[in-house]
Every structure is written in C-alpha cells, then in structure tokens.
C-alpha cells in the first residue's frame, strides 16, 4: 500500500508540470460541476510548494500537490459549495475529511457543501495514490491553503463591492461580513466576482487559528456517504451499469506466470445466456500490474458468466512456479534466516556482543501469506471505443489507473477517463489496477462496455498476496539482564518482485517497516536481509511488512521479559530507552515512509507516551482471573505511534476469547477523531483475523484456499468484547501522520503476548489456529 512504482517520481516534476496543463481540457471540470457562472476553474493549474511549519514527502510523490482553489472549489450562484475529493474512499473517511479541511479554512457551512469525486488526473489534482496512510499527512496543509485562498478571494471581492479595505471584511459561515456597517453578502452572490480575483500567493495566506476551528479535530461530522450507505444507493464499482454492458468472469492461471495450453469453451457455451467465450493467451504475465491472462466468459448476467467460467475446460502450462509449496518454502526461509544476509544496519559489533553475552534469547517468527479479501472483490467497468477509453471502478490509484490503461491500450492518457467509485474496502489490493486493465482489454475486443467481476475465489487465489516471512531475532543479555546485542534477520519475498522479476532482496520501503527503524536503545545492533525468491505476486497489504516485524520484535520483548522475570511493559519501556531522536546513521537508504526525517523523526518520547497512556487507561497490571492474560505491544509505523493492550481468556479446551482491547495512538495533528477511532476499532478486527485465522498456503503452485470458509476472518461472535481508543492530543504544529494502517501491527503481538500471559504458551507461528487446543 505504500509506493507506486509505476511512475518515475522524477518525471513530470518542475516545469513540464505547467506545460502539460495547457493540454488539459478545462471544459471537463466545468461540465463535471455543471456550474457555469459560478466560481469555477478558469485558469491554468498551479502547483506550488506547501508553506508550512513542517515539510512532508508530498511533493516527492508522482505529480506532487496542487493547491489551486479553482481546481478544488466551485461556488454556485445559489451558494452551494462543491469541493473536489481527489483521493479514493475505501472506508477511512478521506472523501469527507479532506474537503472538510477546505470548508473549515474557507468558512463554508458544511450543510451547504457538496462533494465531487475527482476522476483520475494527477496533473490537475496532484497525486491520487490513496495508500500508505498518507492522505491527511500530505494534504492537511495544501487543503488548508486551498480553503484559505478561496476565502481570501471571496473577501477581496466583497471588499471591492463595498469599497472598503479588504482588512475590514471577514468570511464567516458562508458569507462575508463587514461588521463596521453590518453588511453581509453570501458566498453565492460573491462567486462570480471572486472567480475573477487572482489567486493569492501561498506566502501571504493567513491560515485560521486552530482555536477557531469549527470542524477540524472535533469529530462531529459524519461521512458524506453515510445516508447513501444505509439506504443502498452508495455506488461501488460493481454498481455501475451501462446500456449494452456485457458481464465477464475470467479464468486466470492458477499458478502465477502460468499460461493457457489448451482452451475448450464448448461446455460453457451450452449453458443458457452465454454469448461468447474467449481464450486469452495474449496477456502474458509481465511482471507488473498487468492482468494474468487466461480465458474470459462473457454473458448477460454476472451469475451466468460465473457458471460458464466454471464450465470452461482449460489445460494450463504452469511454468516454473508450479512447484511452490508452503511447508517446503517455510523451511527454505528458516534456513536462510539462520545464515548471514545483506547487512542493512550495523551499530557496534553484534557478533562479538552475542558471543560475549551472558544469555542469548533466539526467536523465529513465521507469518504466512495473507489475502486482503476486501468485502468488495475486484471489479471494473470499461467502455473502450476507438482511441478513447472510459473506466469506472474502485481503484486506490486513479491517476495510476489512467496511466496504466493508456499504456496497455497504446492511446494517449488524455483519452482515458477514470471514474472512481466508492471502494468496498481496499487494504492495498486495489492499488493495483489489473482488474481495470482486464475490463479495458475485453471492452476493446468486444466493442461494447464490459464489466469484469472477480469472484471471491479469484480474489483469494490470484491477487497480490501479503508476503510470507520468517523474522529471526537474537537478543544478547548481560548478567544484569540488560540487552546488549540485537540481531534481526528478515527473510521474505519482496513486493519489488512483482514489478521486477527476480528481485530477491526487500526494497527500502519494506525494510523501513519495523526492521532498520527499530527504535530500541541497544549498543550492538545488526539488521540483515537474506534473499528470498517470490513464487506468487506479492503486494501491499494494510500496514505491509510492519505486520511480521511488530509480531517478531514485540514478541521478543515479552520473551526477554519472561527470561529476566520482568513486567513486559517495563521491559518494553526499558528497551525503548531514554526519550530521544533515534539516529540511524548506518542505514543507507532510510525510507521513513517517504517523509523527511526532520519533520518525522523516530521520537522515542512519543513511543513511550503511547505505551504509558495505554498502560494507564487500559489498566495494565490489573489482576485478572485464572485463564486470563494481558499482553502489550507498541509500534511506530506510517510515522504514527501506537500501543495496544489486549485481554484474553483461554479456557481449558483452548478456546480463545478477546475480552478487551485498549489502543493509544499518537498521529500528530488530526482532522476527524471519530474516524480515527473507527480505523483503530477496525484495525483490531483485522489484526485479530490475521493472528487467529489468516493463512494462504500453496500446493503445486496453487493457492489452497478460496473463500471465507477456508480463509476465515473474524466475525461478530469472535470479535473483541470492547475496543477502547485513546488519541494523544497533538502538540502545537505536530505534523499529521498515518491512521489507516498503524493500528494493525501492534494488535497481533499484543494478543499473542496476552495468550502467553494466560497460558504460558508462546506462539511463534501465525495464525494461532488450533495451536491452543491441548
């Protein structure tokens, strides 16, 4: 979910940015907003560096940021303010929170604000990759600037109309007021004049004083789609219906990289309703987000297409991944983890320190592949005609989808329109737009609009799985029990292999997730990455490599506590050490979630704080009945700090119940605490799903699971009794940081540590599954 490799971030930087814009049709936004005569886009787009108390990595993303109010805001003569949401909504609330920031700064009244979803166009809107828990941290300041610019233009227009100095007027709740003369004009009446004003320079903008915020940080505003969701009118990818649209379900190679050897569609053709069956061997696996190939069944209803697909007879040529087998592969990873690997971080002399240690504790932690199983399986609609293509779909990366569809079809990007629907969950899966490309290819071939629907089995078997990993940690202790050496080897097939076949070492954005950025105060530290070959497409999964890393590191903390007879929370704080900014001079390529280290350093004071807060609020150390246990874990990811305490009960048959979850998060300055709470509640469920049930396994190169029966996720009857969330109030000018993902990593180790406290059983391989049954 972190990085989109599709675009060279250096491309389209600087001046080309401005040049390109002139080719963009300005009509489209006018048409889209339907607001001729109001405050609408009428000038070239400008991209300007954000002026802020802190810097973010936003401008290093493909196409950077755009802060022109005329791109994002339209005011109709009736006063309705339309704000563009340019990021994808997959449940985090971003479609509400970013426009809310604009509304706050421009003094718009939220009840008169409407949201318009941006189509894919990064030149116009800036980067649209909705992943990496980045939206708020990259866009808080740009959105405030957009709002402040719009407000200033409205104020200037009003001042001119009254013939008074601009300093005497003030925008308040959807109107501009001149208090000296008690005059006021509504935003709608000012729209046409304001549109003629020049956009003020960012440097001169005055942002609101946070104490005057009406919406930001309050959590009083519900998401804009709430009503539609409850009455069934919210529109997701599969809900798009076009006249003459055909429905397609595809039989993809069950082994990654496999090909069609022979294809017999006659049985499928016999079933009523089938229109066509196509053998598609023209789409070889190209080591990217390209479709896997296979054969498509086209029908008048999705149900018929699915039935037909299941009747198709295909002989596959499995290729070199046909021998992939999970148990054997685990043994390979373990063997690799027991040998030296590429050294990524080195402080002191770990080898000598381990040799000289009074005690060495070694833990090897295994996490199998995981599937995203977003509630909405991948789906997209495409209408390709001539050299034009229009796509509708639940894509996390609207701009990337546009680029990839254009490239695949060999047409200019300007000829591709990507309409972003709501996403029925994303979790990183929908940052790859292979399903939209499939729809585009089929539509081109059939000369008709096509909907490609993935079945749940397709989603589980042929997606982009979370990697499989062995994390091996050796901790050396001196006589007093102090940890003096820490060697962590991480072995896992890399996401980079999906984009560059044969990649065997993890990328900076993977090793930067809890391996080389380990925050403990230990004299001798070494982090290594032995090689691992991928045999399936590996992708981003909510919080990515932080899952195995937090599992390993935070389990090891509790293992050391046990070995030295200390309280796990005290042990954790001792290892985190003194409040300081962690220096990582030996790490060559410190990714830091794409953020500048100055603005977003590893600050152990903040990590300590969430531990202390959750320990206090969550009642760490309270006495619990026999068979119950408390576990704690803390982890920094996506530049946020999270600590979780879980209370479990394990009965004598090994039945596990999670009674209570307490989580503290420090995500810096925040916009909508109500949605932060819901993200953390959800992270507990996702963390529990992967800890208790999650395992995708392979045999003969094929995924052995297919649906929620053999790849179960947590249901309500297993869900935690209660989940409490504590949000650390931000300091002044604390930069915002991630929320969507950071809640996930600490959950599983907190749970596993709690199980240990309850039973004395140490789980080192996930999922827990039946391991607790005697």
């Amino acid at each position, binding site marked *: 979910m972190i990085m989109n490799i599709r675009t060279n971030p250096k491309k389209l930087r600087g001046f080309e940015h401005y040049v390109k814009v002139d080719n963009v049709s300005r009509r489209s936004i006018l048409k889209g907003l339907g607001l001729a005569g109001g405050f609408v886009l009428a000038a070239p787009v400008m991209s300007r560096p954000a002026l802020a108390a802190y810097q973010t990595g936003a401008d290093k993303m493909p196409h950077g940021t755009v802060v022109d109010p005329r791109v994002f805001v339209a005011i109709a003569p009736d006063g309705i303010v339309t704000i563009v949401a340019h990021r994808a909504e997959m449940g985090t609330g971003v479609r509400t929170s970013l426009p809310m920031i604009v509304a706050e700064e421009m003094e718009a009244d939220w009840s008169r604000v409407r949201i318009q979803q941006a189509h894919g166009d990064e030149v116009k809107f800036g980067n649209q990759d909705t992943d990496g828990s980045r939206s708020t941290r990259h866009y808080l300041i740009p959105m405030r600037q957009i709002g402040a610019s719009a407000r200033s233009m409205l104020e200037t227009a009003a001042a001119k109309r009254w013939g008074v100095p601009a300093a005497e007027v003030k925008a308040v709740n959807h109107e501009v007021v001149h208090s000296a003369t008690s005059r006021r004009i509504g935003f709608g009446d000012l729209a046409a004049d304001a549109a003629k004003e020049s956009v003020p320079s960012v440097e001169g903008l005055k942002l609101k004083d946070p104490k005057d915020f009406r919406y930001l940080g309050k959590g009083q505003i519900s998401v804009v789609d709430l009503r539609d969701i409850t009455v069934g009118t919210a529109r997701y990818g599969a809900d798009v219906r076009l006249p003459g649209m055909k429905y397609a379900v595809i039989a993809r190679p069950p082994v990654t990289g496999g090909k069609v050897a022979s294809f017999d569609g006659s049985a499928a053709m016999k079933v*009523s309703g089938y229109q066509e069956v196509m053998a598609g061997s023209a789409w070889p696996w190209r080591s990217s987000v390209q479709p896997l190939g296979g054969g498509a069944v086209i029908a008048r209803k999705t149900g018929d297409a699915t039935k037909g697909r299941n009747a198709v007879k295909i002989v596959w040529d499995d290729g070199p991944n046909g021998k992939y087998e999970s148990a054997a592969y685990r043994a390979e990873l373990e063997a690799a983890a027991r040998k030296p690997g590429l050294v990524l971080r080195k402080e002191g002399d770990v080898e000598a320190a381990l040799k000289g240690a009074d005690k060495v504790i070694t833990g090897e932690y295994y996490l199998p592949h995981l599937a995203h199983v977003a509630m909405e399986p991948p789906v997209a609609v495409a209408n390709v005609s001539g050299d034009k293509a229009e796509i509708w779909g639940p894509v996390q990366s609207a701009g990337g989808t546009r680029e990839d569809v254009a490239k695949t079809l060999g047409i200019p990007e300007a000829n591709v329109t990507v309409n972003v629907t709501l996403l029925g969950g994303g979790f990183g899966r929908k940052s790859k737009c292979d399903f939209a490309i499939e729809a585009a290819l089929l539509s081109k071939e059939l000369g008709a609009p096509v909907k490609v629907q993935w079945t749940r089995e397709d989603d589980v078997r042929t997606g982009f799985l979370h990697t499989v990993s062995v994390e091996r940690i050796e901790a050396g202790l001196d006589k007093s029990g102090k940890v003096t050496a820490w060697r962590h080897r991480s072995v896992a097939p890399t996401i980079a292999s999906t984009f560059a076949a044969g990649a065997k070492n993890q990328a900076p954005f993977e090793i930067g997730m809890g391996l080389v950025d380990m925050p403990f105060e230990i004299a001798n530290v070494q982090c290594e990455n032995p090689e691992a070959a991928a045999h399936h497409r590996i992708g981003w999964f909510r919080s990515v490599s932080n899952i195995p890393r937090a599992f390993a590191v935070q389990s090891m903390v509790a293992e050391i506590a046990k070995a030295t007879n200390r309280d796990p929370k005290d042990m954790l704080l001792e290892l985190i050490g003194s409040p300081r900014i962690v220096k990582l001079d030996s790490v060559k390529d410190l990714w830091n979630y794409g953020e500048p280290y100055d603005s977003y350093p590893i600050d152990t004071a903040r990590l300590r704080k969430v531990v202390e807060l959750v320990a206090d609020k969550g009642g760490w150390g309270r006495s619990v009945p026999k068979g119950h246990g408390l576990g704690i874990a803390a982890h920094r990811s996506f530049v946020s700090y999270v600590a979780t305490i879980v209370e479990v009960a394990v009965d004598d048959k090994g039945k596990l119940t999670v009674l209570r979850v307490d989580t503290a998060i420090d995500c810096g300055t925040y916009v909508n605490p109500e949605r932060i709470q819901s993200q953390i509640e959800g992270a507990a469920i996702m963390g529990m799903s992967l800890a208790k049930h999650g395992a995708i396994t392979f045999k003969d190169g094929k995924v052995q699971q297919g649906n929620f029966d053999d790849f179960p996720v947590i249901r*309500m009857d297993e869900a935690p009794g209660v989940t409490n969330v504590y949000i650390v109030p931000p300091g002044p000018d604390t930069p915002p940081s991630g929320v969507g993902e950071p809640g996930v990593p600490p959950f599983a180790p907190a749970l596993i540590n709690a199980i240990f406290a309850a039973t004395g059983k140490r789980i080192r391989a996930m999922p827990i599954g039946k391991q607790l049954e005697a």
Partner: protein
Amino acid sequence: MITLKINGQQKNWDGDPDLPLLWFLRDEAGLTGTKYGCGQALCGACTVIVDKQAVRACVTSVSDVVGREVTTIEGLHPTGDHAVQKAWRQLNVPQCGFCQAGQIMQAAALLNDNPKPNHDQIREAMAGNICRCGCYQRIENAVHLASTGV
C-alpha cells in the same frame, strides 16, 4: 416466464430459473444495494428479506422466491428511516460501507423476530455477516440502539 415480487413491485423474468436472486436483483432489476461478497452464503453481503426471513440472495434462485415477498435494502423503509437505518447513522457504523446493506437487512430481520435481543443473541444473529473493515462493535451497539428506540 417467472413473476417475482420485489419491494412491492412485480418483476418478470424469462431467463434461467436457476439464476441466483442476487444477480437478478443487481443485473436485471438494477437493485444494486444488495452486494456480492462470496457467492457461497458465507459473508451475508447479499442478505435480503424474503417474507420475514433474512435470506442469502447469492444461493437463492429466482424460482425459489416465486410467490413470496422479497425486500431489499432499497425497499426496507420508504424514506430510509427504519429504526435500524437510523441507528446505523446515529452511531456512524460504516467504514467502507460495502457490507452494510446486508448487515442492516440481517439486523432488521432479527428485530422483527426478536424485538429486544440481548448481547449474545445479537452476536449470534449477526455472525453470518462479515465486515472486513471491522465495524462489529458499532454494529452491535446500533442493533441494541435500534431495539431500544432511536
């Protein structure tokens, strides 16, 4: 020719009588509020009410519901203000929202059957409806709220 009654309206179908109701609703009747999540009665995203019972539309064929009343999320309440829908909004239940039509239909059927379910009854009745976003705490609270008056 099969005639169905969906949200009080007659709908005709002359195609495959075995077509799952889910695809008739979505692809033929245009009632897209009912979702596909698994196709195997494992997730509850496709839950509709047939007569008074919550039913998984993905494993129910169109011919199974001839002569019965099918209610989808679109027809649950004329203005979308069923107690369950109101409770869902009051507690800001949804995240991505994709599972929620199914959750709401399941909850409505539960309350119809048992107007005052306790904690365990709610958890049991709702266990067939997966929410991958993990809104369970709020779903449970919202069912409780709907049962006690919104």
